């Protein structure tokens, strides 16, 4: 379970202070599927980085699995990310000229898992993300975008994280492959993974169960998909 208490994030750009996040508070329970939506500049990326422990809030508390992570140092945050959070990025961010299997095993290298166990876990993760076995030993840069993103999903869940964060996971894909990827994510949530998607594409947000809509650094709506008005209002 994660909880945000009065989170603010302020950047200084020269003389001007930019308030990216203003006093956000919400909870996400285990097993939820949340879509954070909002137009560019709404602060959704900033929020994702804080949820993903890549950044810390300027003030307020961020409680992750009972631990306050808002005041941790860079290396402590890295330690935290290592076992508890899986990332899926818009640009896939796979290592080129490296096999699919090795890409998926990468987080396990830093987590200190033994080489034998790594392969077993990576194969499991690839199976869960429905990645076809015949491509396991292909180089990642030889795959299509949709395939690459599924490798990235397998990599995100190989450590059995408590939270999977996806930042515009379909942003670089056409709608058909985007559907495959989003269905893979829905499937993961069905299997019990907590999922947070950050997106500005409303049709993607519809797959989630809960919508948190941001505008100018403030939550303008926090509701289930069925009750959400934002899905109808927000336009790019």
């Amino acid at each position, binding site marked *: 379970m994660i909880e945000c208490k009065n989170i603010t994030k302020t950047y200084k750009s020269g003389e001007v202070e930019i308030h990216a996040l203003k006093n956000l508070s919400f909870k996400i329970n285990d097993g939820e599927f949340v879509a954070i939506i909002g137009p560019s500049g709404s602060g959704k990326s900033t929020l994702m*980085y804080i949820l*993903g422990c*890549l*950044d810390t809030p300027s003030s307020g508390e961020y409680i992750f699995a009972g631990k306050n992570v808002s005041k941790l140092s*860079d*290396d402590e945050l*890295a*330690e935290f*990310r*290592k*076992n508890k959070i899986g*990332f899926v*990025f818009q*640009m896939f*961010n796979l*290592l*080129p*000229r*490296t096999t699919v299997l090795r890409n998926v095993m*990468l*987080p396990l*290298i*830093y*987590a*200190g898992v033994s*080489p034998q166990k790594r392969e077993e876990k990576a194969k499991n993760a690839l199976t869960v993300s429905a990645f076809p076995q015949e491509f396991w030993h292909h180089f990642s840069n030889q795959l299509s975008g949709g395939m690459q993103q599924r490798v990235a999903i397998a*990599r995100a869940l190989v450590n059995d994280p408590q939270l999977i964060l996806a930042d515009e996971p379909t942003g670089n894909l056409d709608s058909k492959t985007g559907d495959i990827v989003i269905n893979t994510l829905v499937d993961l949530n069905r299997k019990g993974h907590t999922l947070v998607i950050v997106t500005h594409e409303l049709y993607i947000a519809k797959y989630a169960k809960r919508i948190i809509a941001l505008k100018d650094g403030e939550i303008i709506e926090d509701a289930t998909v069925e009750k959400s008005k934002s899905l109808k209002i927000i336009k790019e």
Partner: protein
Amino acid sequence: MLITDLLQETSTALLSNKARSGLTILGIIIGIGSVIGMISIGQGTAGSIEANIQSMGSNLITIMPGFQRSFSQVSAGRGTAQSLTMDDVKAIEEEIANVKAVAPQLSRRYQVVSKGKNTNTQIMGTTPAYLSVRNLKIDEGSFITEQQVTSFAKVAVLGPTTRDDLFGENSNPVGQTIRISGINFKIIGVTQPKGGTAFASEDDMIFIPITTAQKFLAGADYVSTISVEAESPQVITDVQTEITNLLLQRHHIADSSMADFNVLSQQDILKAATSMTNTMTIFLAAIAGISLLVGGIGIMNMMLTTVTERIREIGLRKAIGAKKKDISMQFLAEAVMLTFLGGAAGVVLGWVLSILISRFAGIATSVSLTMILLAFGISAAIGIIFGYYPARRAASLNPIEALRYE
């Protein structure tokens, strides 16, 4: 992160751009190779000069005349004094302990004529002790005897080069006659070739009894050099001091800085030669070191480019839990692997270079294990020094900015 992971990551990264890695390694290869090659020349030269000096005779002490001092304060130059006499030689022989042999020498160049040929060479008047003192061996016939010295015999022993010049190569001139400065000498022997020393070739010389040289050639009874062989290397310094004191006393000189002679041991000469070759080695190594430095800068250049190219990868690694140390280790390992490969190939290159130099340029070279270990150490150090800054830069990247980097 395990060592094997680090190695695998590193080799994947280096192999992904073979041309660039190869060229960067080449810089180190040339650097290490030239350092090894240059030092091998320095060490080889030092070794051959040392062997040369040793071959002049073991435990050798040389006494040479100093300045000719006169009342007019005009110095005629070092070595011009005719202050050493046969009496000094006898005194050294009799009064100083731990002396194995003493050989007085009186040498000067004269025109020498044989049947139809002539040459100008060093005529060395000496005694039988010369053989032992100077490590000289007889090839044919015999050397000057004690009896020939006392009887002012007009006999000569030729060096092999002089023999070749006067009688043709490898002939046996024993029994024949030569004319030195118009006086007939009978040849009684030829010495074995010894090779040129750094100072004078004993192969191109004619040895005659010192008494004969004094009486018939120089017309004076001084000696130009006294060679003394000490009993062992340990007593050389003592013998040197004793000789100095004895001669000062005999020449009635109270102030040792005004001495009209110089007493040099082989170690003094060796020391001077060693300091000379050391300077040369350092000079050569410094020049080669510059190319190593340039190679190191090449490493840094490549690593900085790599870090910039792989910013997003660094961001990803950080996002999935790599700590600062993991990232900096990875890039440092890449730099060290580059220099290490370059170092290994450089050692081979340097070795080949030293073999080629000694074969084709005739300069003595020597490659030692210490040098190779040193070269490896230096190349690893270069990797760490020049890889440190790029690695630190990679490690300190902000993961968010790195992930967003276009």
